[in-house]
């Protein structure tokens, strides 16, 4: 159960115009602007639910995910996930969650992927038997046999992404945050990853929150979507009822137009 209430978050951003004289001026006086990344965000997500969190670039999707996973502290507002406030009880909280940041890597660069997995086993204190089971399952479903003994730096982006997803699920988390998990995947891997997420959700009742720009991901995985723009939640509802025959991409373009984001 995830309950988010009135979360606000602002960032300070240094801004200046281009050019040498502007850069020189900024040496002595930097101008900061406050950017409101999240503006009074509230929503509730039940256990075992899969939710698509969508919005244009810079809307605040990743910031929300980072707050939910205990990485960022919001300026105000409250958030309860399984009875805990993520940023206050970070260590207890992160034991139960898995996070994939599509544009970052959690694998150790110069050693085989399996070494990273074994480190995670110890970090999360996963019993040996459980670890073997999970590993076997992940290796089969994500098709990792051949790449797991290769150093991460020698994998292609898509191969690495599959390993990243595996790494985030090795401790069987109850909640999974996926921040653009299908970046760089080929069609076959994309479908494999989607099926895998569906499967996890079905069998383990994993709650999934997914941000993506790939509307097929959304269509394949989630029924409910939350639309965010300029830090505000604009819409929270059922995808099917909005579609009425048109494709998801069209629905989203419609929504972006309607809310002028």
């Amino acid at each position: 159960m995830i309950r988010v209430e009135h979360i606000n978050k602002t960032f300070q951003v240094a801004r200046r115009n281009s050019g040498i004289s502007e850069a020189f001026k900024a040496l002595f006086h930097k101008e900061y602007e406050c950017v409101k990344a999240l503006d009074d965000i509230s929503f509730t997500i039940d256990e075992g639910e899969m939710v698509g969190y969508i919005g244009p670039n810079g809307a605040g999707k990743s910031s929300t995910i980072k707050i939910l996973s205990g990485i960022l502290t919001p300026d105000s507002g409250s958030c309860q996930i399984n009875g805990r406030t993520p940023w206050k009880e970070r260590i207890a909280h992160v034991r139960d969650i898995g996070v994939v940041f599509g544009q970052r890597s959690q694998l150790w660069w110069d050693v085989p992927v399996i070494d990273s997995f074994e480190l995670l086993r110890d970090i999360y204190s996963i019993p040996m038997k459980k670890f073997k089971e999970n590993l076997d399952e992940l290796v089969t479903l994500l098709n990792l046999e051949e790449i797991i003994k290769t150093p991460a730096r020698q994998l292609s982006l898509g191969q690495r992404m599959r390993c990243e997803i595996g790494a985030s699920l090795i401790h069987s988390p109850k909640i999974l945050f996926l921040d653009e998990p299908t970046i760089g995947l080929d069609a076959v891997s994309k479908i494999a990853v989607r099926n895998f997420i569906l499967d996890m959700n079905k069998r383990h009742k994993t709650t999934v929150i997914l941000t993506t720009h790939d509307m097929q991901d959304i269509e394949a995985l989630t029924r409910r979507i939350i639309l965010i723009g300029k830090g505000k939640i604009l819409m929270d509802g059922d995808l099917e009822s909005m579609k009425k025959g048109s494709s998801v991409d069209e629905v989203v373009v419609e929504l972006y137009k309607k809310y002028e984001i």
Partner: protein
Amino acid sequence: MNKYLSFFRLRFIYGFQYRAAALAGIMTQFTWGALEILMFKAFYNADAKAFPMTFSALVSYVWMQQAFLALFMTWILENEIFDIITNGNIAYELCRPVDVYNMWFTRSMANRLSKALLRSMPILLFAVFLPAPYGLRLPDNGKTFSWFLLTMVLGFLTVIAYCMLLYIINFYTISPMGIRMVSVAVVEFFSGAVIPLPFFPKGIREIFEILPFASMQNVPLRIYSGDISGTGLYRAAGLQIFWVILLIVAGKILMTKALKKVVVQGG
């Protein structure tokens, strides 16, 4: 505890991947040590009595310093930790059920130990077999050696606790270059990395010896070469313990503050 151990192990293995770097390191340290000793030899030839340490004590100081460089030099910093902060991968560090300070501390220990293990043996072996007075002397007795080991551990911890502060400052400055350059210059000078502290004039030396930098390589190396003995041992080791605790506490407080305001760079 198990998780930190496992983390230690992986970082340790990681260090073993870079054999060429280790070989280059050994060569550099050996050459550097030889140069330094030859330079001091020229001074000692002029007037051996004008110096606070005997030549053979100084030689031992230099060889041990070069052999265990990886344990004591504050310029051996982990670029990966700076990168984690600068490029925003701190996000992944924070979604693990571990204390970030402890994790980075463990990581630095493993990195330095794996480096030191690879590099110290060849240098020590070679230096022991060099003819007197250019060779590495063994310490006078077992007691001196035990004190050396103890203060070496304390010095090692002081170095890491100090480096942790540099990493944490990077949360505020974003670019690590400035702080690294300043810190390297300052520590080299104050820790006795270039010129051993006994060579500094009285008055200045007493002040230097209280600073945390003197608790790094200065203490174990001088104990090994016999320059610190008797009650001086207790004083030096006590001061080391004081600095280790103070630096760790300061680091932990700063880290907690930094993490509250952390911004994940790069989206």
